[in-house]
């Protein structure tokens, strides 16, 4: 089962109106090449799930700026003033979740569970839009799990069967999203034969991954952002 494919073929599987998870936290782990191909594919009306929206002109922000995204499900907008303005002008709908709650909603979706029970936010305004129960003597929120039609994943190394390894702070949401979508497309810098990854070091078992696309470690897309170096 060689799951390698071309970026064109992989991205052509994403359709307008779908819900798409995108890995990464800031630049690391963001599947920059897959996002660029998606930008060029012309799909629209997407619901996109990511930790944040990258910075203006980068990654997922390019799709939002291009008007391809109907709704964002994220943890925060960070310093992305462009998307914040679009939100304020109601050009994009934004649903916020506490970061670890977003992570666990996705993990639960990937684990075939319906949701989880948490005390995070019970005394705050986020409780107003959530279902509250009494659980073991305390107020708690019922948080539904989250799945997507597709997930776009960045990995450092993959074998042709679809086993994935991440590196440094490029793990973040990738291993969780890789389990929580009906179609999982992973880009990778290093492609190896089956057996090329120590089975103890596999971070995402191949069963979760549908397509592997080898991408170039292009410094324009993946390089250090000079304005973030002190």
């Amino acid at each position, binding site marked *: 089962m060689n799951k390698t494919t071309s970026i064109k073929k992989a991205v052509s599987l994403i359709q307008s109106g779908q819900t798409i998870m995108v890995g990464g936290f800031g630049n690391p782990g963001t599947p920059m090449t897959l996002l660029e191909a998606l930008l060029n594919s012309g799909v629209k009306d997407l619901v996109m799930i990511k930790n944040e929206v990258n910075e203006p002109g980068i990654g997922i922000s390019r799709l939002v700026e291009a008007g391809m995204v109907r709704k964002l499900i994220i*943890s925060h907008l960070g310093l992305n003033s462009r998307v914040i303005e679009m939100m304020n002008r109601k050009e994009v709908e934004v649903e916020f979740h506490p970061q670890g709650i977003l992570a666990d909603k996705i993990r639960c979706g990937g684990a075939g569970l319906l949701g989880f029970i948490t005390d*995070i936010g019970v005394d705050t305004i986020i409780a107003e839009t959530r279902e509250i129960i009494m659980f073991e003597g305390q107020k708690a929120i019922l948080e539904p799990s989250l799945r997507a039609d597709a997930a776009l994943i960045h990995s450092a190394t993959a074998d042709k069967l679809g086993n994935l390894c991440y590196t*440094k702070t490029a793990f973040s949401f990738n291993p969780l999203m890789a389990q929580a979508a009906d179609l999982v497309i992973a880009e990778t810098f290093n492609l190896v034969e089956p057996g090329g990854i120590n089975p103890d070091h596999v971070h995402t078992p191949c069963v979760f991954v549908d397509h592997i696309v080898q991408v170039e470690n292009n410094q324009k897309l993946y390089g250090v952002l000079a304005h*973030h170096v002190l």
Partner: protein
Amino acid sequence: MSYKQKIAARAAKTISTGMIINLGIGLPTLIPCYLDPMVRVMIHSENGVLGAGAAATHENAHPMQIDAGGGYITVNKGASFFDSATSFAIVRGGRLDIAFLGALEISERGDLANWIIPGKFAPGIGGGMELAQKARKLIVVTSHCTKKGLPKLIPQCTLPLTAKKCVDMIITELAVFEVVDDELILIEIARESSLDEIRKKTTARFKAAEGELPAF
């Protein structure tokens, strides 16, 4: 020393060897600069790293290695990388000895508001709610007043809360408070300040600790 540096330097003294700490974005990231080199801590950043080291330079910045604020970092020996669910298992599982966060408002019983000004500033909550609610100790590091000169330590928060009764200590450029049994206790006064000034700039009810208060 700027007021931020003064706060960071005082905050550094709350940290002792063996602790696991998390530094919010902004002012808290200055704290490690003032740590005694003998104090060995592990810095957790919620984007998925334990054991973050000093900020990286143009020479050693790695594009895949940042902290939650987006700055490039080095890591120390014994560091580990992990996914966001594990990262928040550390936070919500109560494994952080101290989290340092900024503030918009702090109530006199230790409520914190720091993430949203409805209609004006709403970039999302990020990891702050979980850090505030679940760190073993939450230390707020903040300017004593807003940019308009209004007190941040007030009887009740007017902004939506980050978490209720979560603050354990408040360090400003003028004073250090502890929250004990839902009460603010003033425990230190900045050399440059006075009890009078603090009273004037604090509408939250507070008690002064007994005896002469140490200066910082």
